């Protein structure tokens, strides 16, 4: 027999103004199973809560209904008070007779009756409530950071400086990402590598960080606090312990003409190579697809010249297994290549390049030692055209969004060009100028005024080559749309920032959602920009959406603090209102028939397969099991289960039916 306490709050005049609280308390006090009922002015106040706690102890209540405001407001308050009185907090429910009753109806009998109905519903529900304990999940205090660009580096350093272990995985031979390819960064014109490389070295030397480069995440299993990750270390064909980074092999390799990815195809590299001089780790890898030994079985010059005998041609990929409590995705972005644009020549014009390629030209350590030269003939361009929004903001071709950073880096490129080619003329074809960051607008103004860059508002309809120059045809919309034709020596397209290649597969491996453009999806666009819908996995940087460096760094630090918060306890506490698959004695074991429809609809991969074995170790049945660490309590599986084997605490079938029946029968 239940012993339920009903507490009807006046909420000052908010409820009692239209609802006869005393009557509600009296009528509901007569319900079967209600041991004690009262009304009070302000239940959420200190005296109100004391009243609640004392009533629980005095009347030995085993259930509490507080008829007051919305549970979205004070459910935690009253549950805490209930717990303090020694009663399980999940035996306390609230009936919303303010937002859903007193505030929306006039003062009359009908309103009071409705309040009575709502209280009755919760009284009957509480009778079916079970005492529940918060779920505790252990936490492994190691973070996995996927991606070694500026965002990954920042996140790794922040987490490591909190005293936690970090494993960083980067698929290129060196960390640094796109930031290492830039010459100077806006708006300060800081030398990009100068500000980046100290951080890269810090990562390599940090005692808490383990760095795997030329490696990729192979599989991720487990759940928040308990991820099990397999990392594939691709074979570098080098024994890293013996290699001293002297670089002799790279100078002797006979295969010298491989297009260098780091230089965006503008420079060449050998088959055994270090991507750039400041690489971390500064040890080479062998590109097996282009190495003579792997193609033809001959050469081995590097092995011959290596002073420490560090070359290992037969080295194989290695799988490393680690345990992590949290994962930070920081895999960055890429830019569209020029062959994306049919009207700009399908990528066949050598002097039409993308923004990253221009960065390499402008870089002092780049293929032209910092001189702006045409890729076709090495001449210095006297007229250069920058095309902004090349691919972005274009619903017709599928990249609808704005790539955010291009207006700024185009202005920067024009500025750098003018600093190097004093008699050159830069043109910029733009649609709008988006310069919203700190000192950004001033920077663009400098480019236009001090560096005399000619900004033309209009799009470029076509670029074609004639007699070694590029004819750029566009329009000037501020002059009424008149056609403009420029004979340019070089064209730089500010191509759209897109998700890095392999992003979709990686998101599926890691079990996070992604949007139609393959950028990783944040849990809430406004309030949770660095979290994903998968508990324990966070986002940092441009893998979530195009971002500039300060935003990537901020996001990375944001993700790091989420990880640190997660690691601040040895155990995770979670709300127990989760789903559970019933279990019973053999031979039935469960109503579950193992159809796993629940598994296919769970957005959180919270349903696992549990094998029921007999004494001989043979599997008799495979049943569904809910991982309470992952379940968020939506109840979709419960509605779908054909045999009603799975139910959800707090909103169980019994509870819901009871509520309905109580509501409609008085």
């Amino acid at each position, binding site marked *: 027999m239940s012993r339920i306490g009903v507490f009807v709050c006046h909420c000052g005049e908010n409820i009692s103004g239209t609802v006869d609280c005393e009557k509600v308390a009296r009528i509901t006090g007569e319900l079967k199973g209600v041991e004690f009922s009262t009304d009070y002015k302000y239940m959420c106040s200190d005296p109100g809560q004391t009243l609640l706690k004392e009533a629980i102890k005095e009347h030995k209540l085993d259930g509490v209904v507080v008829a007051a405001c919305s549970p979205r407001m004070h459910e935690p308050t009253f549950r805490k008070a209930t717990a303090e009185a020694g009663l399980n907090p999940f035996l306390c429910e609230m009936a919303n007779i303010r937002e859903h009753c007193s505030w929306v109806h006039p003062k009359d009998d009908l309103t009071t009756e409705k309040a009575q109905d709502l209280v009755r519903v919760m009284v009957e529900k509480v009778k079916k409530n079970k005492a529940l304990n918060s779920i505790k999940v252990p936490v492994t205090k190691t973070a996995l950071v996927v991606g070694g660009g500026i965002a990954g580096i920042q996140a790794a350093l922040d987490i490591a400086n909190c005293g936690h272990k970090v494993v960083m995985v980067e698929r290129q031979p060196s960390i640094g990402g796109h930031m290492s390819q830039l010459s100077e960064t806006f708006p300060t014109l800081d030398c990009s590598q100068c500000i980046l490389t100290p951080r890269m070295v810090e990562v390599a030397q940090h005692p808490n960080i383990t760095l795997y480069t030329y490696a990729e995440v192979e599989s991720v299993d487990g759940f928040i606090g308990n991820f099990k990750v397999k990392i594939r270390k691709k074979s570098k064909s080098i024994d890293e312990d013996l290699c001293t980074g002297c670089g002799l092999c790279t100078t002797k390799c006979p295969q010298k003409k491989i297009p260098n990815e780091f230089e965006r195809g503008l420079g060449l590299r050998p088959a055994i190579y270090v991507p750039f001089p400041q690489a971390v780790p500064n040890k080479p890898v062998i590109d097996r697809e282009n190495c003579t030994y792997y193609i033809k079985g001959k050469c081995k010059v590097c092995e011959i010249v290596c002073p420490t005998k560090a070359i290992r041609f037969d080295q194989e990929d290695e799988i490393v297994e680690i345990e992590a409590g949290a994962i930070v995705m920081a895999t960055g972005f890429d830019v569209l*290549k020029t062959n*994306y644009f049919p009207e700009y020549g399908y990528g066949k014009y050598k002097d039409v390049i993308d923004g990253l390629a221009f960065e390499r030209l402008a870089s002092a350590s780049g293929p032209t030692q910092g001189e702006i030269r045409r890729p076709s003939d090495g001449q210095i361009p006297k007229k250069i055209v920058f095309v902004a929004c090349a691919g972005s903001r274009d619903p017709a071709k599928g990249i609808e969004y704005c790539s955010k950073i291009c207006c700024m880096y185009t202005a920067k490129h024009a500025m750098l060009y003018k600093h190097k080619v004093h008699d050159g003329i830069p043109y910029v074809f733009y649609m709008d100028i988006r310069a919203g960051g700190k000192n950004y607008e001033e920077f663009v103004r400098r480019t236009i005024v001090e560096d005399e860059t000619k900004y033309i508002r209009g799009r470029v309809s076509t670029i074609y080559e004639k007699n070694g120059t590029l004819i750029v045809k566009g329009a000037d919309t501020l002059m009424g749309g008149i056609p403009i034709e420029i004979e340019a020596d070089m064209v730089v397209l500010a191509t759209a920032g897109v998700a890095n290649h392999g992003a979709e597969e990686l998101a599926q491996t890691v079990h996070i959602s992604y949007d139609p453009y393959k950028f990783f999806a944040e849990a809430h666009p406004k309030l949770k920009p660095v979290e994903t819908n998968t508990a324990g996995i966070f986002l940092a940087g441009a893998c979530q959406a195009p971002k500039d460096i300060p935003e990537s760094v901020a996001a990375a630090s944001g993700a790091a603090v989420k990880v640190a918060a997660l690691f601040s306890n040895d155990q995770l506490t979670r709300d127990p209102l989760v789903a559970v698959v019933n279990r019973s004695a053999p031979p039935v074991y469960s109503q579950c028939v193992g159809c796993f429809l629940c598994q296919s609809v769970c957005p959180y991969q919270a349903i696992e397969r549990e094998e029921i074995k007999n004494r001989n170790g043979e599997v008799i049945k495979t049943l569904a099991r809910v991982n309470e660490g992952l379940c968020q309590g939506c109840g979709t599986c419960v509605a779908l289960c054909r045999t009603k084997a799975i139910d959800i605490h707090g909103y169980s079938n019994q509870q819901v039916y009871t509520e309905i029946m109580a509501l409609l029968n008085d």
Partner: protein
Amino acid sequence: MIKVGFYPGCSMKGGAREYQESVTALAKVFDIELVEVPDWNCCGATAAHNLNKELSLSLPARIMALAEKEGITDIVVPCAACYNRLSVTQHELAEDPSLTVKVASIIELKYEGTTNILNIIQFIDKYITDRLAEKVVKPFDYKTACYYGCLLVRPHSILKFDRVEDPQSMDVLVRKAGANAIDWAFKTECCGAGMSVSRTDTVARLSGNILKDAVDREAEVVVVACPMCHSNLDMRRPEINKFLEKKIDVPVLYISQVLGLAVGIDAKTLGLNRHMTAVNLPEKPAKDTAVADVPQKVVNTQKTEV
């Protein structure tokens, strides 16, 4: 004898007579009989769709309905404008069944929308190209600028033919006939179209720029697949010369004439004498008739690669 439906359209009976003559002659060499859609009407061209939507759909629908009635499945439409109008009409009616019902009542004929509409290049590729190499007797060894104009490849989402910027289908075809198809920048630039009469100066400028680029790149012939293109580039040559302030001699040939010459049909049958700009193609020294098939990378409809 293979029979293929044929919709000439107005221009091929008038100012572009040589286009029909050359198409018919070429088809004959390959044992193809072109069967005109009986009682065909004007497709409406640009006039109809500028003025009255229902008219612009009914006119082409009637042609296709008549073809269906005759049991004709494939019709070749050599005029690019007619091809464009018929294709767009077929697409719009397929998207809107209620409109189809309306149009069917206007034309008082049953319309299924099952006709296969082929432009001249699609027709050649379907029925002739496989057998072309063996019939080439006089390789068309000239530097050729293939001009596609506007209507063959646009709107891409409806026509789904070739690439929109820098199409290649005609280039590939003329190479099979031995031509040296050049890469040039004005393949799909507008010639001025119907402004030939109302704004001849505009046509002179637009068509002039097209020919100038072709000539700058040393083209010896310009090849077209559309009577309008031909008319502006050929008939308006005096105005073009005036605009460019120099005399341009480069002849403009129809694709069917180029292939016709390659397979040995004489110039008169192909109607070359009807052109306004004299067609004086210098004799090339005889070469091995086997035509090397130059492997081409890009032929298919435009795919954007990221």
